[in-house]
């Protein structure tokens, strides 16, 4: 569903992604881990089409379309969803109203019927039930005065309603205590589906205790330097990212899954 080939991107004139390639199939969850400054958040922003992220080379094919040619809102309508690391507050705009506007914009784009408020509310109730969360977020302004946990939960809730085919979760675990982390992870797990691909970007392994990925990639200095199964994350947790730079990469790349390299 998503094929990224040799992606190069710059932010403020500085090259951040330096030839990243990745293939994600529908139904898979890939984790992208890496040290700070490796380009993890840049990847999400580039895929979502944020202004200021300049692609200088490479290609991104999403469901057969050249993603990089589309406007940010078109990408969203095509089914790309970015769960933000720091969801922004929009004072005075009701959360439910916002989400309905988003859903209907997407439905319109896809030539589907606009949902009226009754139909929308029914959908919302259903999704709240699936995620096992209360409706207290519905009546407030978008993220306004939300706690860190509430903001992240709201992102997952939006994802549930918008039903994207590709979800990118940008450091969804950051700033969450363990209970909030569990709630959010549970939500994500409930939204796993054979039609949906997910990219989980995280610095720490702990999120992956709760969301078990199919593949783990290590991003360092703008490239994927290692790829493995879920246990790669454990190894990173154990040994830290410094280990990568000390030659661990080569070892891993020869046998990404089982090699027990000990530098």
């Amino acid at each position: 569903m998503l094929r990224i080939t040799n992606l190069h991107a710059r932010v403020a004139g500085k090259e951040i992604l330096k030839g990243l390639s990745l293939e994600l199939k529908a139904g898979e969850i890939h984790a992208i881990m890496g040290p700070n400054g490796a380009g993890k958040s840049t990847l999400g922003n580039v895929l979502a089409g944020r202004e200021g992220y300049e692609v200088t080379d490479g290609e991104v094919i999403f469901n057969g379309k050249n993603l990089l040619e589309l406007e940010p809102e078109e990408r969203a309508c095509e089914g790309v969803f970015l769960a933000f690391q720091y969801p922004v507050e929009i004072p005075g705009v009701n959360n439910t109203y916002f989400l309905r506007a988003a859903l209907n914009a997407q439905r319109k784009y896809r030539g589907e019927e606009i949902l009226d408020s009754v139909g929308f509310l029914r959908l919302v109730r259903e999704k709240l039930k699936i995620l096992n969360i209360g409706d207290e977020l519905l009546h407030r302004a978008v993220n306004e005065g939300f706690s860190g946990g509430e903001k992240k939960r709201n992102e997952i809730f939006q994802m549930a309603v918008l039903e994207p085919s590709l979800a990118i979760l940008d450091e969804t675990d950051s700033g969450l205590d363990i209970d909030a982390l569990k709630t959010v992870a549970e939500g994500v797990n409930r939204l796993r589906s054979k039609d949906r691909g997910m990219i989980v970007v995280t610095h720490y392994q702990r999120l992956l205790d709760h969301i078990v990925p199919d593949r783990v990639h290590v991003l360092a200095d703008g490239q994927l330097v290692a790829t493995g199964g879920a246990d790669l994350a454990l190894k990173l947790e154990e040994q830290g990212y410094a280990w990568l730079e000390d030659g661990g990469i080569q070892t891993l790349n020869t046998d990404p899954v089982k090699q027990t390299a000990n530098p």
Partner: protein
Amino acid sequence: MTGNTSTIDTLVEQKYEHGFVTDIESDTLPPGLSEDVIRGISARKKEPEWLLDWRLKAYAHWLEMEQPDWAHLNIDAIDFQDISYFSAPKSDKDRPQSLDEVDPKLLETYDKLGVPLHERARLAGVAVDAVFDSVSVGTTFKSELKKAGVIFCSFSEAVQDHPELVKKYLGSVVPQRDNFFAALNCAVFTDGSFVFIPRGVRCPMELSTYFRINAAETGQFERTLIVAEPGSHVSYLEGCTAPMRDENQLHAAVVELVALEDANIKYSTVQNWYPGDEKGVGGIYNFVTKRGDCRGARSRISWTQVETGSAITWKYPSCVLRGDDSVGEFYSVALTNNYQQADTGTKMVHIGRNTRSKIISKGISAGRGQNAYRGLVRMTPPAENARNYTQCDSMLIGKSCGAHTFPYIEVRNPSAKVEHEATTSRIGEDQLFYCLQRGISEEDAVSMIVDGFCKQVFKELPMEFAVEAKALLEVSLEGAVG
């Protein structure tokens, strides 16, 4: 809408001729301002002598005054001799007595403005005193209001039918010499609305007036007077649009509100005069003096305004809190786009004890728009325990616009409390991207964010107006981003 253009053109092109004053046949006075012109207006309206004298006195004052230049505005010189001070829609010689007699072309114009008088007004329970250019052409629901003892009519009618009330209150809130444009209005005002709510009456419906400037080269000078007797309540709505035009048009209205003991006046405005084109050509000069006098104890006056139009807005709806425990409120959204300029705010003058005032001002600047909040909170010596709360927020869209805040606070009573909060924010790229990422188009995103920003003010508007105001902001912001 264009049916009478040629007639007006002809009239405008006419050379000034002495004796035109007696020429009752002509519908538009040639451009120019003089005592004769004022006598002409007064004669056309068959006004009593005292009112003509009052006008002439104001004119004498005006001649001695100078146009103020303290506002944060660039105003091209106005040639007051180049303005025609009276025009009436071309129709029969006699004014229409009911809507059925109104020129269908006129009704069509109202339809285009979204003011289908008889239908929507009835459905919405709104009485409409529609002003087209300078003469009122239709008033609905008069009889229902009459039952309640409410007087709601054009200013001209009030002069004929209720001279004692007009005489008593006219100029009692905004004196003739108050300012340059108020003085001008006193001299040449043509029409407007008059509202009188008798003691203890709660007005059974929202009163609404739609204004519109149409005839070419005609300044419009409305005069509105609302008197709420002890214990009465009234909500008054004023809204307007103006068609596309090139020349600057002067609009200098005066609104006076009088609230006696325990009376409550809510005055809401949606102002959408033609703002000029995107290069700053044309547009209305909107220089308005609005003031409410909380004359009685426990009275309350609340101004709500949504200002999206006009090339230049110069407007400070104010409250004089004379009565003990009286309350003044000001809720404002002012939006400037392209080359629009606004210098607007309020004055809260606390005189009575325990008087309270609240100011919520939201300024939005886009394009090359300049938006200034100018507010005065004055606590005079007798204003024991008076309180004011001011919140003044500005939002900038784009990089070439400006927001300015000029709060004046004068406290002459140590027991007074004044709070002032102000914020300025740029419409966040983060907010915008967040919306885009959810599939919402840029234009929708901007109007959504702006709407949220204005919520505190919109919720003060009557339901119908709130919807209209939101739509107006959307239209006014078209092309503001990107």
